[in-house]
């Protein structure tokens, strides 16, 4: 990788970190659990890297590692989003009634 790409990627990293801090800094404590499981699901973005590691014609060992990576990342994505949705479906206002 050339130096210019490296700098470019680090720049993206720096901006994203600041964005992440800004986005989350004022979250009320009542939403901490769903926020944590929801952001956890986003970290399942590794699924993109896992899929890309499975180019056809790769070594068998690579394919096994890649498949395991896809499976693990998918657990993270599917489980994370579903469990967050399940929790948030329960948060309701008073005027929305009970049940």
């Amino acid at each position, binding site marked *: *990788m050339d130096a210019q790409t490296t700098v470019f990627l680090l720049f*993206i*990293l720096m901006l*994203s970190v600041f*964005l*992440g801090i800004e*986005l*989350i800094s004022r*979250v*009320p*404590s*009542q*939403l*901490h*659990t*769903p*926020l*944590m499981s*929801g*952001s*956890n*699901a*986003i*970290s*399942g973005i*590794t*699924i*993109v*890297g*896992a*899929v*890309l*590691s499975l*180019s*056809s*014609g790769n*070594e068998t060992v*690579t*394919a096994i*590692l*890649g*498949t*395991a*990576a*896809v*499976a*693990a990342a998918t*657990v*993270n*994505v*599917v*489980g*994370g*989003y*579903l*469990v967050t*949705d*399940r929790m948030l479906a329960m*948060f309701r206002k008073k005027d929305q009634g009970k*049940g």
Partner: protein
Amino acid sequence: MISPFLIDMAYIVAAVLFVFGLKMLSKADTARRGNQISALGMLIALVATLLYGGLDYTYILAGLVIGGGVGLIGAKTVAMTGMPEMVALFNGTGGVASLLVGWAEFHQSSTDIAAGTLTAFSSFTLFSIFLASVIGGLTFTGSVVAWGKLSGKLPGRPLLFPGQQIFNVLLLAGVLAAGIAFSLVGDAADPLMMAKYDLYLVIVVIGLILGVLAVIGIGGADMPVVIALLNSYSGLAACATGFIIVNKVLIVSGALVGASGLILTGIMCKAMNRSLANVLFSGFGSTSSGAGKKNEGEARVITAEDAYLVLEAAGSVVFVPGYGMAVAQAQHAVRELGDMLEENGCEVKYAIHPVAGRMPGHMNVLLAEANVPYEQLVEPDDVNPIIETVDVCMVIGANDVVNPAAREDEDSPIYGMPIIDADLARTTFVLKRSLGAGYAGIGNPLFFRDNTRMLLGDAKDSVSTLVAEFKQD
């Protein structure tokens, strides 16, 4: 096969959806929609990636089906009380995915270099492989240990051996040195190629050991902080993976998660008045006796029938739930009691400490499950200024977060931690199984105050008895 430009465009859309999703997740009204938007972003990123072409779709499908099935079953079957364990495990799978991607990339590149189809690694790529593997690995084992502690499969108290901290520091220094050596580029035809692979395996093993050692020495009561921190690490590992394969959407999303996890970690530490270093390295709670003053006096026990008479006359009641409520599965009974009290003309609130339960916001989720509207859920800062006007404060399975020693006893290990001042209410009922110490192993003088009455027994049974008393009228 679709042009890489369009795929990159799709990644930008996905990143925008993640940002909006996270933003909306931080407000109760929009949180659910925010999560769905974030999931849509993930779907777009995945579909775009599948369009790259030249991929081995059999393996990909196998991975997606296996992982999707496990994730689906886990998410649908977990009880709300078991949520901390579930989130810990999901953190772990995110971490191990990064480790595996790093390994797969390293293995394939090594093979390609040996076959002459790839010229050489760059130091930057190697260092990224190192970071993804170590952070991913320690997130994985750390999460498994955290899960073990939360689910009671491992002892909750810190497990320490002599010289553990020095050993951890040496291990960390060692793995960093190994990482730098690993990142130095060897020639393509270098006979040391094999040695580099060996070095990589050593790095992976050290990373896995580090995760175990880092979490095993932390007490069960500090697990909320640990889960938040591991959440952050799983994002950082994804970020490092993005640097390996030069993929911007991984870097952006990983950094977002890494930053948000760090913010949550900071909030947790603040709620306990402890520094992160103190949480990670002090072995807090390893001595069961604990420092601090001896508890004096005698606890006054009250029966459910007498408690009912007090509650019936009360004009305002504040519930303070803790992990004991989750263990007893008492949240539905508590909400029912809250409804009864409201019908009786009483003002009802639920005061929730940021670190009540085994993970941040855990009590809010449980009470939401029991249909408590979120306007009734208040934070310590909302309730402490008016606590002296509250007729009855009902502490249900909480202990350390209402311990007045944090305010009064400078020798107490939790001195300075912000608490809910339950002891200042006119009357305080403490629902508790027995008169023992809390999860952190610290005695609680609240139990011996003049205005405190202990309602001993299973929290769910006690609350149900109170509900039955109300129904008799």
